[in-house]
């Protein structure tokens, strides 16, 4: 079996998805590509089941908020081929205020809570998720706290006077 490396991954991706994905670079050796949200499920199925690529371990799903960009949310998937120790980072840029993306729960059971966490923090709606509820925060919370516009500190605090902090 050939040693899998980023070049090989890229050529396999080119064969199948030519023109519908963008290579964002290889920061610290980790190949990063970006795809559109309408083909993300196909893309994940492809990299998971392809006999050469076999990125069949979902390391993580998370998101990033870029309030100044036009597509202001980015969902980041890390997938891993354990045999060759090659990782692949897949980014999907989507636009708010309630961005939607297909769920990966049909591929990996483990995606369930990762997507719930991402929904909880960023309000990204994963379509087809069996149970998309808040997971870490209180159910009553009506904002998505990891979005950049929300403050870290509790705005309702009354004991914190600005003059104690020289502000």
């Amino acid at each position, binding site marked *: 079996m050939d040693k899998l490396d980023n070049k090989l991954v890229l050529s396999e991706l080119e064969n199948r998805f030519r023109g519908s994905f963008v290579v964002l670079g290889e*920061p*610290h050796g*980790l190949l*990063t590509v970006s795809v559109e949200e309408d083909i993300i499920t196909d893309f994940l199925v492809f990299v998971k089941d392809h006999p050469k690529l076999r990125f*069949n*371990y*979902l*390391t*993580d799903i*998370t998101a*990033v*908020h870029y309030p100044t960009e036009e597509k202001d949310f980015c969902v*980041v998937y*890390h997938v891993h081929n*354990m045999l060759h*120790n090659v*990782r692949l*980072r897949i980014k999907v840029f989507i636009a708010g205020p309630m961005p939607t993306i297909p769920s990966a*729960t049909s591929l*990996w*059971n*483990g995606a*369930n*809570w*990762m997507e719930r*966490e991402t929904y909880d*923090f960023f309000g990204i709606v994963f379509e087809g998720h*069996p*149970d998309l509820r*808040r*997971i*870490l*925060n*209180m159910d009553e919370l009506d904002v998505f*706290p*990891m979005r950049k516009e929300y403050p*870290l500190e509790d705005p309702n605090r009354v004991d914190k006077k600005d003059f104690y902090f020289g502000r």
Partner: protein
Amino acid sequence: MSNPITKITPNAAVYFDNDPQDELITLNIGPTHPATHGVFQNVVQIDGERIVSGVSTIGYIHRAFEKIAEHRPFYQITPLTDRLNYCSAPINNMGWHMTVEKLLDIEIPKRVQYMRVIVMELARIADHIICNGILGVDTGAFSGFLYVMQEREFIYEIFEEICGARLTTNIGRIGGFERDFNEVAFQKISEFLKRFPPVLKEFENLFVRNRIFIERTSGVAAVTPEEALSYSWSGPILRATGVDYDVRVVAPYCSYEEFEFDVPVGTKGDVYDRFMVRNDEMWQSLRIIEQALDKIAKEPSGVFHADVPAFYLPPKEQVYTNMEALIYHFKIVMGEWETPQSEVYHAVEGANGELGFYMIHDGGRSPYRLHFRRPSFINYQMFAPMSSGMLISDAILNMSSLNVIAGELDA
């Protein structure tokens, strides 16, 4: 002995007990149940003593680490990582330092890497001691726990000697350690290597071939490798199913490739196998520490950090007396050094599995986005689905053997 899991169903909504014809009982376990060793809530439906289905609710100590990290400079994020998995805080500290060093392309001297290996392996032993000791307590064997807790106190003494703290250590800085290990620390580490094996052996003798322990654990909560991988399990519980995935071997960091150690794996993925994998890992950690001490002896002494004044905080006494150190200190604290705009994912083998740090940096004082891949969070999501069909007592053992740490679960 309970049935192995036949079918894994996804989480459903929390139940309502409003059907008078229903013969199932809804039982709420947690969030502060003594048997769960942490704040997890599980609402289960039971038929007699057998769990029919369950729903986990988590987030009871959600502390918004990721949001805090967006507002703190790198060196102030280290104390946050302490509080992720507080049973093995040094591994988190080191993982975070290595993530930043990877971002900044800092080369770490060999001696420092070996020192880090020692600290991380001690932490791994401390963590596994708690997990296996508590598993023993949950099966009704209290004395083993007390034996090994003594040794854990000794590990904490070593940490105290190295950094001054016991539990949430905040060990090290970006670029190395804040000070060299002193003589006493080295002595204590050597002493630990001598005094721990007999205790661990005795602990093993209490459990490994103990009929009661085997009856309680063998075959309980057996998981196939396919299920485990589908749920993105990692760490000892994944290895107990027979998958030999260990970040230390697959993607070595901190010169782990130079060390000789085995990766213990199980066959059935049940509670007994998890116990054995953790137990064997403690022996392997001892081997690694021994080798690391030998390697340190061969390196030039007195090196305890990389020569990167732009990122390594100077010692406080120099800050007060030395102009240059003061300038460096000021510039680091104010975040005035150029840092690359990049993103980095770094994974270390935490005590519970792959602990990953995903950082997006925009060149500012603090990370633009920092995400922790927390093994406890990802491992725990299988708990409720896999509990269906189990006895309550077995589910409790299963939870102990997953070693879910609330701080890491909820971040």
